[in-house]
């Protein structure tokens, strides 16, 4: 039967070594951190991509190389920098963000923004000049033209956001450093994400647990992918 593997997994999910709420709290933390970080990244990235796609300004090449460098920037280093920023001696020390979800959101934001910007920029520059011109000649303001470009590039931008989300939710290094992989005394995750949990469980030899958490992670990534592909299909991806 096709359902068998899932049925086999269910007891594993309910049994020890999982305490009640353990897995769901980890999933919650992972999604919470990644979704907020990626949303904030999107709010920054898309306008930046639009401006870079439209306007010629001095230092544009520099901004581009910053973005490209950012795409390959080691996540542990980002984690380290954010850790320094939120530590007691750091500039944000007074906010007491160390080992919190907020600190994790900060580092995920830094990591997700470059790929979202780069892919959005490619999508925005891919919009035909004719289509922009049409929006303008039909009486559009600059804002109207920008909105048309966003609309035309919508699948590319959705792909960008997806890629950013994929990077954020699968990332281990920085969330481990700034979040600390903490659970509260009742075993509920505070800053433990799917990735850091998998890493911990595997190191402690609880492979079954690690596999289940890994499967949940894969399922989330696949689900998000499927949604975007579906969006593309019904919206006419035929270009």
């Amino acid at each position: 039967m096709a359902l068998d593997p899932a049925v086999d997994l269910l007891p594993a999910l309910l049994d020890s070594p999982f305490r009640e709420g353990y897995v769901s709290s980890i999933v919650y933390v992972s999604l919470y951190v990644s979704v907020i970080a990626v949303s904030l990244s999107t709010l920054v990235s898309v306008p930046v991509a639009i401006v870079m796609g439209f306007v010629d300004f001095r230092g544009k090449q520099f901004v581009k190389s910053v973005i490209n460098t950012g795409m390959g920037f080691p996540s542990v280093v980002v984690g380290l920098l954010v850790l320094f920023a939120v530590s007691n001696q750091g500039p944000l020390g007074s906010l007491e963000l160390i080992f919190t979800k907020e600190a994790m959101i900060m580092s995920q934001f830094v990591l997700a923004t470059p790929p979202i910007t780069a892919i959005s920029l490619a999508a925005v520059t891919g919009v035909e000049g004719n289509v922009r011109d049409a929006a303008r000649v039909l009486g559009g303001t600059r804002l109207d033209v920008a909105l048309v470009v966003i609309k035309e590039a919508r699948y590319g931008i959705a792909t960008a956001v997806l890629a950013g989300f994929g990077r954020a939710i699968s990332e281990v290094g920085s969330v481990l450093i700034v979040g600390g992989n903490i659970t509260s005394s009742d075993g509920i995750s505070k800053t433990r994400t799917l990735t850091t949990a998998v890493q911990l469980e595997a190191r402690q030899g609880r492979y079954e647990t690690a596999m289940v958490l890994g499967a949940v992670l894969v399922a989330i990534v696949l689900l998000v992918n499927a949604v975007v592909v579906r969006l593309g299909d019904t919206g006419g991806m035929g270009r």
Partner: protein
Amino acid sequence: MIRLSNVSHTYGDGPVLEDLSMSVDPGEVLAIIGPSGVGKTTLLRVLALFVRPSSGTTELDGRAVWSVGESERLALRRRIGMVFQEASLFDASVVRNVEYGLRVRESWRERLRSQFRSVLGSNGTSEAVEEALEVVDLDDSLEQDADSLSGGEAQRVSFARALAYDPKYLMLDEPTSDLDPRNTGLIEDAIGTARERGIGVVVATHDMHQAERIADRVGVLLGDGFSEIGPTERVFEDPTDDRTRKFISGELVY
């Protein structure tokens, strides 16, 4: 009236238009003919207030377009429609395309409201949109995706899109160059309708017979300016300029 006075334009290497003066009146059809690469598209873009010429003045209804402020220029631009030579429809339905010019003229409040209504699926098609699509005989393809249209249909939607917001002037850049006789006929009829409505139409074309069929006046663009511009019959029957005569008779090949 749109009036160009001593307009020159260059893209960097050599002038495309030089010291060109002309005007377009409401309710007339002016055909621009001339060889490929001579600057027909450039001239139409200048007339559509889309391109600021390197020098010279562009006036619309008595206002010097490039001397006024941004917001007044927007208002002036909105009296003009243009259909580009290349396909430029938005990746959306036919209705969405045709209503675009109307939408951008609405207040943000109205725009949000109609956006909301269309999400609920209760957005009626405005009369202006239906009328514009009737003019090009496409009033039964409202919900079709623009990228599934044939070339001729796409060109007709582009025409309707420029007509829907009731412009005073309409620039058409080779609107029938890739079309079959039926689509060409539909576009030519639509040009006639626009003219009857008092719209001043400027149409760039390669097809001299078309110019003869539809135009009140013809401008012959050779070199970097008009070799001749005047009433259609006069220009074709009795051109005063030697190059014009050669171009019309097909002797002058570029």
